[in-house]
């Protein structure tokens, strides 16, 4: 039962990064492309962004239903970055709605656009900071200590900063990749392709940064990757794909680009899950919260699995239909 739940959680995280993440990334890309990108970006994300976003809510629900202690530990100690994420989520969604749905297009659009871009940048960064803090293991075992020690230092350091940058770049890169396929003219295609390439280079550098900064915290991520065959395999596959991806961008093969980028993201996520499992949250000087010691009672898990399976049977076909109508049926 637990395995199925973790698998669905992984799928939800992956789909959130691939879809919801890219919607945030679109705002980041807009920071670089400016006015030129607005039209393409708005049209591309409007029909799907709400549905995409729900993968995050699904992941959260799985956490608090299936692994309540993991959920409460994260929400207690990482309150501040999560709170910033929430504000970002609200502002991004509201700004996009106000910009896109408003019948009258006038001066106010300027403010929404700024709010949209800024919150699209801040949200993934602090989401990355939160994930970094979960991996790093500076979360204390209890709340004794100063405010700084307990509620700030677990997430405010070089490692979490780099993971934040990494996730932001990942989202931006995915968005640029998808937008290549949405571009209607040669000029915007060039813009998005260039953005995708730049983001990719930065992403690889940030990825190296994650490993290097981990070493300074005695968090031997590199060694853990080598020890796990799944993680090593993921890294190798992701690397092998690079030249193919690069060539397809050049030839403007929309479907292939998206597919390859999706595989690479899946490799990153599965690599992370492989070195993390079965730990869910690392705790400083204490037993980490694992899948096994934090899971809800058997009956809750069984019912959660049923709910997830039925839910997915309903959602996936509908979701596929949504994408067929709006993304592959032009």
């Amino acid at each position, binding site marked *: 039962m637990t395995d199925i739940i973790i698998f669905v959680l992984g799928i939800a995280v992956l789909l959130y990064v691939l879809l919801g993440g890219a919607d945030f990334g679109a705002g980041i890309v807009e920071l670089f492309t400016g006015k030129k990108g607005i039209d393409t970006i708005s049209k591309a994300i409007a029909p799907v962004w709400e549905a995409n976003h729900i993968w995050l*809510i699904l992941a959260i629900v799985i956490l608090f239903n299936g692994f309540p202690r993991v959920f409460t530990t994260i929400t207690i100690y990482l309150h501040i970055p999560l709170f910033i994420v929430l504000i970002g989520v609200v502002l*991004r969604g509201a700004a996009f*709605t106000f910009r896109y749905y408003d019948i009258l297009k006038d001066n106010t659009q300027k403010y929404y656009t700024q709010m949209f871009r800024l919150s699209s940048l801040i949200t993934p960064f602090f989401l990355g900071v939160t994930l970094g803090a979960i991996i790093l293991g500076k979360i204390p075992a209890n709340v004794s200590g100063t405010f700084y020690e307990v509620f700030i230092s677990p997430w405010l350091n070089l490692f979490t900063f780099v993971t934040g940058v990494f996730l932001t770049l990942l989202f931006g890169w995915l968005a640029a990749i998808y937008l290549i396929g949405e571009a209607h003219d040669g000029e915007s295609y060039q813009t998005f392709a260039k953005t995708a390439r730049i983001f990719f280079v930065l992403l690889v550098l940030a990825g190296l940064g994650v490993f290097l900064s981990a070493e300074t915290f005695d968090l031997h991520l590199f060694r853990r990757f080598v020890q796990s065959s799944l993680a090593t395999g993921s890294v190798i596959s992701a690397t092998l794909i690079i030249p193919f991806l690069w060539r397809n961008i050049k030839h403007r093969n929309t479907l292939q680009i998206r597919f390859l980028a999706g595989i690479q993201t899946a490799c990153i996520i599965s690599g992370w899950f492989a070195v993390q499992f079965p730990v869910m949250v690392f705790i400083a000087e204490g037993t980490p919260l694992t899948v096994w010691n934090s899971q809800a009672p058997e009956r809750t898990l069984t019912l959660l699995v049923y709910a997830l399976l039925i839910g997915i049977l309903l959602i996936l076909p509908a979701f596929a239909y949504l994408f067929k109508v*709006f993304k592959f049926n032009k």
Partner: protein
Amino acid sequence: MPWLMFVAELKWIKTGKKVYLDLAKAWARGVAIFFAIGAVSGTVLSFELGLLWPKFMEHAGAVIGMPFSWEGTAFFMEAIALGIFLYGRNRVNNRIHLISGLVVGIAGVLSGIFVIAANAWMNSPSGFDWINGQALNIDPVKAMFNKAWFQQALHMTIAAFASTSFAVAGIHAYMQLRHRGNDFHRKAVHIALAFGSVAAILQPISGDISAKNVAKLQPVKLAAMESLFKTSEPASLVIGGIPNMKEEKVEYGMHIPGLLSFLAHGDFTAEVEGLDKTKKEDWPPVAIVHYAFQIMVFMGMLMLGTGILFLAFMYKWKEKLDKRWWLKLLVWLTPTGFIAVEAGWIVTEVGRQPWIIYGIMKTRDAVTPMPGIQYSFYMITLIYILLTFLVFWLMRRQILAIHMNHQKNNPHD
């Protein structure tokens, strides 16, 4: 709101009258804005459960998480169907488009019902044994179908229909007052009130079910709602009035002997438990609950009366529906439903205090150990006040712009 949109769409397909198409499109725009704000607020809600109440979620997560996972599914379907309805008009065939509108409505109602199961569980905790501060022998199915679930879900679902319908009717009545004889706004008022009047008439029945249930499950809450300080047999119903906490009585209220006994237990002479049966430290803030309850009932009565009038006019005196006083009345009633909903939530939430899980866990024991939580509260309040203003402003712009558009295309309306 999706239901209004669906009915307008259905009428467009059936009658081919363009005014219904315009209406469906206009309402879809409203649904889109509300849904987007709802989707991001839903994210806030799921996180805040942990950010604010981690001790509550630690125990409640495994017990009551299940309806949330169902709610997630319903929410997903709603988002997908709405995407198709809003943007797919020229991409999918008419039937699929219409069905997607219906799915939005059904999924919306379902997700509300699922979330309320979790809230009802806090009022009527079941499906677990509380042993030494731990929830053991957890049965999520029993927890979900707790004793308060049905009445709360019913009451809130009807309330959602009533409040939205009256708000929509009020806005279109306002536009109709300014542009007499406009068919677009006239039809809008009729569709909205068709839903609103039925909901407003059904609501007192569901309210009665609720009252009887609360009398059984949470007698303190009922006592606070009515400011019944002393256990009485029979107990009289107090309408209005100011609770005097020092002397423990209600001043200036209208007292109807025996009626509270009847409403709570179906018997004019039955005993109704008062606040005196509970330790004073476990009392909810009596005055707030009392006023909120009175406000909710008063608003409900206003809508009930108007709903009955509407049905009567539709049946016999159709010409009255275009009278100025009638439209003005509708304009005044625009916010009543939403005020009633807010007041109702104050009754059920404040009325449960000091408990977060009734009889099991106190609210103060559930709150996050992080100091300075008030700043996080101020901030989120500020953001939501700002959003409220923005949404109002944006909706106003839409309504005016849609009206201009329709006017331009149908000059003789």
